[in-house]
Every structure is written in structure tokens, then in C-alpha cells.
């Protein structure tokens, strides 16, 4: 009887597992079939063209890159510092943790609205505003992963540093962060992957664009996620096809980052 129950349990978890894999695998399959043949050098380099005339997503790739650089610069520095504060200084870190978790749970489109109200109204639609909106997504993820990685550093290590006469701030920067390096790095990669795929917070901030914006951060910019959104919902078949190609590209980048971050955290 007991063995039967055990088998039933194993069987039902297997079924659930397969059910969970179906959407993931079908997503991969469809994206590959629809997207793979669109990816070509001109697709990766050119600006968008009117329907039926080819064109590419070069400016969106560049825009994504610029915004990720802005988002990472803000998100990583603010996030790591917050994580350090929660893990090493705060006596009431559980309250801060609740705030951080709430922030991580705020729908990303609302973050975009907030940035629209406090930034876009003054500097206009721009890559900078888009980057700021994406950084708001990264901050809580980076902060929590940094905090958790630091809390896993054994107290022995802090004691050893203190006993060497090393001031606390130096010990945190040069010893504790180093001991927590793997956990922090995987948090950084995961949060960057998250920000890469977000379109909603960019609608009111980066706005999207048909052209290369150069390195001017104050120009509206396109991103790969925005291309998927606008082209995917367009009535022209070749634009929808370009959305698939972009989707595949984005999927590959984020999958690569996830795998890479997992290997690092081992």
C-alpha cells in the first residue's frame, strides 16, 4: 500500500512536470520556427523599413544596449549598496526586506508611469528615462540577492577581519563582498536578464523610435522588447515576422545569461 502511494506521488509529480514543460517547450519551438530564418546580418544592422521593404532592428539592439547600461549603472550601484545596508548595518532589516519585496512586486508598467511623471515630463521621452525605469526593476532584485549572499557569509569571517584590526567598512568592501561574490554576480545577471525583456516600463519613457539615436541619451530610443510589442501587434505579416526574430534573439540572450549566472553561482 505504502509503495503504491509512493508510486502515485512520483507519477503525479511527473505529470505536473510535463504539463509545466509544455508551454516552455512550445514557446521555444514556435519562436525557433517563426524567428530563426528572419535573423540575418541586415536584420541585425538596419533601421526599420516600411512594411514589405525589409529593414532590421539595429537601432533597437543599440537602444536596448544603451538603456541596459544606464539601468545597470544605477541598479547595480544602488542595489548593492542597499543590500550591504540590509545585511551589515540595519537592525531592522526585516522591515526593509518587506519594502524591497513590495517594490519587486510592483507591476513594471506602474514603474514606467512613475518615471514618466517625475522624469519624462522634464527631459522628454529618452533612452535615459527608459534606463531609469529599467533600473527600478533591477534595484530590488540586486538588493535582495546581495543581502542574502552577504548574510550567508559566516560570522567567523567578520570576526577574523575585526580581529586583524580591519575597520568594518573595509572588511565589507574587500572581504565580505568577495566572500559573497558568487551570489551577488548571479543576482546581477538575473536582474539584467529581467530588465532586458521588459517592454511595459519603456512605453512611457523610451517611447520607441525608428532610427538610430546615436549616443544621445536624451533622444527617444527603441528597444528589442518594444519592437516585439509594436511589430507583433501590427497588421503586416513581415513586421510580425520581425517581431518573432527579435523574440528569438532576446530569448537566446536571456537564456544564455541565466545559464551563465547559474554556472557562476555553483
Amino acid at each position: 500500500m505504502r509503495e503504491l502511494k509512493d508510486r502515485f506521488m512520483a507519477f503525479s509529480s511527473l505529470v505536473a512536470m510535463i504539463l509545466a514543460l509544455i508551454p516552455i517547450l512550445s514557446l521555444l519551438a514556435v519562436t525557433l520556427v517563426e524567428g530563426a530564418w528572419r535573423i540575418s546580418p541586415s536584420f541585425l544592422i538596419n533601421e526599420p523599413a516600411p512594411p514589405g521593404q525589409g529593414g532590421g532592428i539595429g537601432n533597437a539592439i543599440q537602444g536596448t544596449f544603451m538603456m541596459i547600461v544606464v539601468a545597470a549603472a544605477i541598479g547595480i550601484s544602488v542595489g548593492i549598496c542597499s543590500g550591504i545596508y540590509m545585511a551589515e548595518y540595519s537592525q531592522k532589516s526585516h522591515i526593509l526586506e518587506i519594502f524591497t519585496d513590495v517594490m519587486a512586486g510592483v507591476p513594471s508598467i506602474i514603474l514606467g508611469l512613475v518615471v514618466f511623471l517625475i522624469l519624462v515630463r522634464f527631459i522628454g521621452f529618452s533612452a535615459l528615462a527608459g534606463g531609469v525605469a529599467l533600473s527600478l526593476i533591477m534595484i530590488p532584485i540586486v538588493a535582495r540577492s546581495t543581502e542574502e549572499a552577504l548574510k550567508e557569509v559566516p560570522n567567523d569571517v567578520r570576526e577574523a577581519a575585526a580581529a586583524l584590526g580591519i575597520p568594518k567598512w573595509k572588511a565589507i568592501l574587500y572581504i565580505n563582498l568577495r566572500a559573497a561574490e558568487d551570489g551577488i554576480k548571479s543576482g546581477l545577471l538575473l536582474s539584467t536578464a529581467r530588465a532586458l525583456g521588459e517592454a511595459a516600463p519603456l512605453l512611457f519613457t523610451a517611447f520607441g523610435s525608428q532610427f538610430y539615436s546615436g549616443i544621445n541619451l536624451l533622444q527617444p530610443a527603441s528597444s528589442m522588447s518594444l519592437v516585439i510589442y509594436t511589430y507583433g501587434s501590427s497588421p503586416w505579416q513581415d513586421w510580425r515576422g520581425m517581431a518573432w526574430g527579435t523574440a528569438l534573439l532576446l530569448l537566446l540572450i536571456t537564456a544564455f545569461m541565466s545559464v551563465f549566472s547559474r554556472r557562476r553561482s555553483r
Partner: protein
Amino acid sequence: MKLVLEKVNAWIGKKQILYDVNLEIEERKVTAVMGPSGCGKTTLLRVINRMHEEVRGAKVSGTVLLDGEDVYRMPASIVRRRIGMIFQKPNPFPNMSIFENVAIGLKLSGVRDKELIRRKVKEALEAASLWDEVKDDLDRPGTALSGGQQQRLCIARALAVEPEVILMDEPTSALDPIATRRLEELIRNLSKNYTVVIVTHNVQQAARVSDYTAFIYEGRILEFNSTAELLKRPKNKLTESFITGRFEMLREVG
């Protein structure tokens, strides 16, 4: 006297751990602090290099003099650089090579001269009798060494910043008998150049490594003498019962 403790009392929260401890520690000798677990040995050690105050709710009164200077009137980081500490469990810094583990104290205290750092690391590893075993793989992580080697690495790390006193808190409790024997030899050697204070609950260890022994019980020093004298002719009944191993029995009878 290298270290003098006068009327030292220590608390953690409301609980008093040490009561009016007076102790004089001679330069370049090994002084053992011996006693049953929970008697305040570790706290006594941590009061000396001001690590006690790292614990929340910790308080101290009385004076601790290092070369006649009150350590509680010096910056804690200076005190700890002059008085190094070795812990029960070896605790090398994770994600750092053997070399970096020893060099970090120097680097973080502002030494930039790479050649000087390399030389000091070598000297520290030699003094900790670890150099011959690791000289060819200084780039390996410190945590990859065996337990005994890790503890000697921690000693090298402490020696690199050139302390005058080394405090050891049951440094062999996590080691096997062979590694323990090696470390005890090392402690004897270190006392040629350093003042060593070692906490132990092991009578044989005190006998093997120390010149002086203090017997501490329930936060009070009951007896302090040269190790030979204290072990041969203990004056206090509790000391005697601890030495002869009848202590637990006695305590149970109460």
C-alpha cells in the same frame, strides 16, 4: 609585564561573565587560561583585544594594560593589530588565495609596496611553519587546505601584521591529534618572539605548551602560577579536582 588585567568585570546583557579578574602576563611566555566550558575563558581573551565589544549588549569595566597603556583608551583597530587572535575554528577568508589571506591585513592597512608584501607573507608563512607546504601553490584557495594547515594559515595571517601578543582561543579543538601536536610545537616556537595567551580546557595541553597557567572557574580566577607548580601542587581544591579529572564528579555532587 606585557599585559596586566586589573579588576576586569565583563557582562553580556545582564549576565555577568567575569568577576574582578586580575592577571599579569609575562612577555615572550605562553600563558594558558584553563577551565571548564562556560567559565568565561573566551570572554577573558576577548576582553584583552577588545573583541568582546563586538558582541551586542557586551560591557566591560576595569583596565587592561598593554605595555602599561590602557587598551580601552586606544583605537580598537590599533589594539587588535598589536594583539592578534586565533579562533577555535580555522576561518580563512573565502574566495581568497593562500597568499591573499596572509597579505590582506597588510594591504588593508595601507601597505602598497608589492615586494615588501611578498616578503612579509613569506616570513609570516615561515613563522607559522606552513611555508614549505604551500610555497608552490600560493594561488590555491585558502579554504582548500587541511584543517591543521588552515589554522596555521590563520596564524600566518595574524603574524603578517606584526602583532606583539597572540591570543589563541582553543586553537586545536577542531584539529586531529597529529595536527594538534604540530600546532602545539608551533606555539612553543612562537613564544620566542611573541607573548602568547592560550585558552584551553585541556590540562595536558596546558602542560605541554604553557609556562604559566591560570585556572578560571565561574568567571573568577581561582589560581595562577607557573604551569609546573600549578599542576604539581595546586592550592585550590577545585583546581586539583579539575587537574585530576574528578572535576565533573565534584561538580555533580555540588
